[in-house]
C-alpha cells in the first residue's frame, strides 16, 4: 500500500481506478480519462495533487540559499506572490527535480516539489543549507488541488469566500496569494486557465466536494498526463532525470547564467554548452493512426532518438510525444517511430506546445 492523500476516500467512493504514482495511491481516472481531458479543455476539472510536497524555505538567508541551489535565479522574484519554475540540479548538471518556487516574503519562499523525489529533495536541500541562515520545513499538513479549465474561475466564484475570490481575481499568471489559511496560485499543469489551492489537509475534502457540486469534473492522472503533454510540459522521471541536463530537456529557458551567480551544476552546464552537440527535447506528431509510447525509438536523417513521453492526444485525435533527438534534428523534419511489433509509423517533429487554452497550435 502506498501513501494516501486526504482525498483517498473520495476517490474510492467515486469508483476511481487507483494506481501507484511516486509511492502514492492516486486516481488514474474516474471512468474515462478522455472525457476528463475534454472536461478540462472545455469546462473545468479538479485534480488531487496532494502527493506533491510543499516545502517552506524560511530565514534571512532564504534568497541566497535558493540562488545557490536552483538553476533558475530567484532574484527574478521581486514582488511577493510571484512564482518561478526551475530545476534542482546535482553537481553534474543532472536534474534532481523540477519545482515551482513561490516568493511570499523577504524571508519566506515556498517550494512545491514532485512526489517521487520529494524526500531526496528535502535531504539534498538540508545537506546544502550549511552556511546559510535558513530553515527547511516540509508541510505534509497541507493538501493541494488544481482547478483547471475555462470555467474554473466561474466555479471558484461559487465555492471560495468573497476575500479568496477577490484575491484570485487579482492574480496574474504565475502569481500566488495567501488569504487566511488558503494559499491560491495561478499555476497549473494543463495549459488551461485555472489555479491551484493549498489548504490544511482537514479542509480539503469540503473544498473538493464543493467544486464537484458546481459541475467541476474530478480528473485523474491519466487526463493530467495527456493535458500536460499537449501543453508541452515535461514530466519529471520521464522527460528528464539525473542522467540529463536541463539544456537537453527543453529547459534551457529555466537556467539563468546571468552575472556570475554560483549555483550547483553551473560549471557542468557551462562545460556541456561549450562542448556543443547537445541533444534536444522537442515534440513528435504521428502522421497516421497509432499511439506514441515512452521508450520507443525515433529515426530520422540525423540518427536515432528516443520518445521520453508518449500518448494519444484527445484534442488532436493523434499520437503525440516528447522526444530527445540529436542536435541536428529540426522541428518540421520527417521521421519514423518504431512500433511495438517493429512496424514503422510515419511522424514529424513539431515545436511544442501542441494545444493550449483549448486551441490547437500545430499544423496537423
Amino acid at each position, binding site marked *: 500500500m502506498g501513501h494516501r492523500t486526504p482525498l483517498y476516500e473520495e476517490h474510492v467512493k467515486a469508483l476511481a481506478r487507483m494506481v501507484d504514482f511516486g509511492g502514492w495511491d492516486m486516481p*488514474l*481516472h474516474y471512468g474515462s480519462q478522455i472525457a476528463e481531458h475534454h472536461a478540462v479543455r472545455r469546462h473545468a476539472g479538479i485534480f488531487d495533487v496532494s502527493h506533491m510536497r510543499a516545502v517552506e524555505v524560511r530565514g534571512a538567508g532564504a534568497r541566497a540559499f535558493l540562488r545557490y541551489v536552483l538553476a533558475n535565479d530567484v532574484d527574478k522574484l521581486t514582488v511577493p506572490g510571484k512564482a518561478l519554475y526551475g530545476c534542482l540540479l546535482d553537481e553534474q548538471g543532472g536534474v534532481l527535480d523540477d519545482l515551482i518556487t513561490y516568493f511570499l516574503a523577504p524571508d519566506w519562499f515556498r517550494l512545491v516539489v514532485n512526489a517521487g523525489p520529494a524526500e531526496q529533495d528535502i535531504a539534498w536541500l538540508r545537506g546544502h543549507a550549511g552556511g546559510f541562515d535558513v530553515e527547511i520545513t516540509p508541510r505534509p499538513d497541507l493538501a493541494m488541488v488544481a482547478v483547471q479549465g475555462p470555467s474554473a474561475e466561474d466555479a471558484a466564484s461559487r465555492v471560495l469566500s468573497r476575500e479568496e475570490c477577490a484575491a484570485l481575481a487579482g492574480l496574474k499568471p504565475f502569481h500566488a496569494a495567501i488569504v487566511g489559511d488558503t494559499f491560491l496560485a495561478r499555476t497549473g499543469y494543463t495549459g488551461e486557465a485555472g489555479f491551484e489551492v493549498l489548504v490544511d489537509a482537514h479542509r480539503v475534502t469540503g473544498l473538493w466536494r464543493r467544486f464537484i457540486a458546481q459541475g467541476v469534473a474530478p480528473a485523474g492522472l491519466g487526463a493530467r498526463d495527456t493535458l500536460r503533454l499537449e501543453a508541452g510540459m515535461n514530466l519529471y522521471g520521464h522527460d528528464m532525470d539525473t542522467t540529463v541536463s536541463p539544456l537537453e530537456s527543453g529547459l534551457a529557458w529555466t537556467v539563468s547564467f546571468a552575472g556570475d551567480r554560483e549555483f550547483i551544476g553551473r560549471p557542468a552546464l557551462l562545460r556541456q554548452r561549450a562542448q556543443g552537440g547537445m541533444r534536444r527535447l522537442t515534440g513528435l506528431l504521428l502522421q497516421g493512426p*497509432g499511439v506514441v509510447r515512452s521508450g520507443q525509438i525515433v529515426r530520422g536523417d540525423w540518427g536515432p532518438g528516443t520518445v521520453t513521453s508518449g*500518448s494519444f492526444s484527445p484534442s488532436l485525435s493523434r499520437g503525440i510525444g516528447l522526444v530527445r533527438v540529436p542536435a541536428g534534428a529540426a522541428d518540421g523534419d520527417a521521421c519514423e517511430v518504431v512500433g*511495438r511489433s517493429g512496424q514503422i509509423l510515419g511522424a514529424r517533429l513539431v515545436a511544442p506546445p501542441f494545444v493550449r487554452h483549448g486551441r490547437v497550435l500545430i499544423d496537423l
Partner: protein
Amino acid sequence: MSKIPGDLRYTKSHEWVREAGADLVVGITDHAQDLMGDMVFVELPKPGTRLGAGKECAVVESVKAASDVYAPVAGEVIAVNEALGDAPETLNADPYGEGWLFKLRPSDPASVRALLDASAYEALLASEG
C-alpha cells in the same frame, strides 16, 4: 465488478464468443476493456483470413496500452465491425453488444464447447485478483 453474461463463452485471454447460428461473434470482455481504459484504435483482421486457434488476429489500443486479441477457436473471418474504426470508444461503452470485433466461421463447430463458460471465467477473474 465487471459484467459476465451467462450465455457467452470466454477465453483465458479475455475474449468472449457468442454463437449466432453456425457462426461465432467475438469481442473482448468487460473486464478487459475496463483494465485497458479508453480505447483509441482498433485494428481488425481482413474478412476471409483463416485463423488458427489462439492466433493473434486483432489489436486493441487504449490511451494506456496496446493489446493483442487472439482467435478463440480456429476458423475463417467472415465479417468485421467496421464501425469501430471511427468509434473505438464503443468497445468501452458496450463490449458485449455494439463493441463486437469480428465474426468467425469455426473450422470445427464443436470447438466452442472447449471454451470457458461464464462461471469458469468468473473463477478465472477471481484467481487473477
